[in-house]
């Protein structure tokens, strides 16, 4: 389906959702303080934009996700490459990774607060944790599944170690690493909201928690909507990254 068509369909399905929302609010009999309708939420969205707090919270959240995610990428991908190329290191390290991986980043909150105090650092640390292990595992698997023919070519043409990494390993894993990053950034975005409910005084997570304390469900829903929109946006960026021809050497084109 072409671009215009998919856009129209998305607008259509969102319209249906909003309409349903309105209908449920009208007929449920809930107080608008408990379940605000689309119109009230839109008005309060205007307020949040007007007084600048929405921008402030969004930027704070995006900053934390970006910092944690970049840190995880720039440490996780090289570590994954190392583990993928080094059988013994992988045997030693894999059990540890597989043990730490299923521990929810949220379980680290008490320790993160103890170690890093209050502020951006514990949140960035939690996001780093949520992204780091999936990136390491995905990169390791990607390196291990490179077609051995390419390593024969490398030895046939006398590649040195650096060339094996830069001309074979890195280009070969780019498509699967980008896919992994796309999945991971979504997880990081989920985690940042949770992290912000505990350790900080800013961010969309904080906005939601704070609005709940003030019984402003319309602000809570504003926060949720913005989180959803930015999540879509992040996913879209990563998908576009995955479609760049030189990054996929034609897998998409086939």
């Amino acid at each position: 389906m072409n671009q215009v068509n998919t856009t129209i369909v998305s607008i259509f399905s969102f319209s249906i959702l909003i309409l349903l929302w309105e209908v449920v609010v009208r007929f449920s009999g809930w107080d608008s303080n408990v379940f605000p309708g689309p119109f009230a939420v839109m008005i309060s969205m205007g307020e949040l934009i007007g007084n600048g707090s929405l921008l402030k919270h969004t930027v704070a959240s995006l900053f934390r996700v970006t910092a944690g995610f970049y840190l995880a990428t720039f440490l996780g991908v090289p570590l994954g490459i190392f583990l993928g190329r080094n059988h013994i290191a992988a045997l030693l390290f894999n059990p540890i990774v597989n043990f730490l991986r299923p521990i929810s980043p949220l379980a680290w909150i008490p320790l993160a607060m103890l170690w890093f105090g209050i502020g951006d650092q514990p949140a960035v640390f939690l996001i780093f944790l949520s992204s780091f292990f999936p990136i390491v595992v995905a990169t390791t698997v990607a390196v291990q599944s490179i077609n051995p023919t390419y390593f024969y070519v490398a030895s046939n043409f006398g590649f040195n170690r650096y060339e094996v990494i830069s001309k074979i390993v890195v280009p070969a894993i780019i498509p699967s690493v980008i896919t992994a990053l796309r999945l991971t950034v979504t997880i990081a975005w989920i985690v940042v909201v949770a992290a912000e409910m505990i350790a900080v005084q800013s961010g969309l997570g904080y906005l939601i928690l704070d609005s709940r304390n003030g019984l402003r469900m319309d602000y809570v829903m504003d926060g949720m909507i913005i989180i959803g929109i930015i999540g879509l946006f992040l996913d879209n960026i990563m998908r576009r990254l995955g479609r760049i021809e030189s990054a996929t050497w034609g897998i998409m084109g086939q």
Partner: protein
Amino acid sequence: MGNIVATDISKEYFNRRYKKREKLDTGSIFGATIPVLEGVDFEIESGEMVCFLGPSGCGKSTLLRIIAGFEEQSSGILTIDDKPVTGASSSNIFVFQHSGLLPWMTVQENVELGLRNMKDLEKKEAEIMDYIEMVELEGFEHHYPYQLSGGMQRRAELARALAVNPEILIMDEPFSGLDFLTHMKMREEVVNMHEFLGKTILIVTHDIDDALSMGDRVIVFSSRPATIKLNQKLDFPHPRYIRQEDSELSVLRDELFLMLGVNYAV
């Protein structure tokens, strides 16, 4: 240069997951040992084009990988120009059964691999283009492998191999998966290239007609573990008409079919 001597080469693989496949395989609870090559002896003169025939799975690719230095034999001695093979080298270039082009590089970048240490950039560019023209791929130098047909991919890989100016060209089923006409045309091109460049060329094929119409020598293997069933020099001029009735080549052709287990040559 490019003289290859194999003396009593054997190769066995060890499979950790216990899987004895045939009677000759030996195994314990730790895994199975699978003999693939057994006592393979031959001598290939420099400049010869040799075709290896044998049933599928008998160990032809394994033998080529050993000659290329990608793998080591389990026992026996393999020498190239009187020196034992100790590893891969750019003087023996492998052309892979399924494409060995690096899919993230264009044709030009692939061909450049063998010339990448040249200092003179202009001369390098010119040489890359020479080889691309030699295989008639001019105009496709900025295409990625997936944008080329099967035959064009083989030719690009051939250009990449020739650009290194190797002593030996090792080709594993270079014509498999090509349509009939492309196959015939490539066969002709490889024969011409061999007459022109005079390199030692090893070709694994399962096509008896490939072997008879191209080879200076044909070596036939038994099924796994591969032993040599026939090693015959083919001293005939090109082009060869292999199906002329009662000619030496057509008699040999019938024998080869029988040897590979087909009773009625087609």
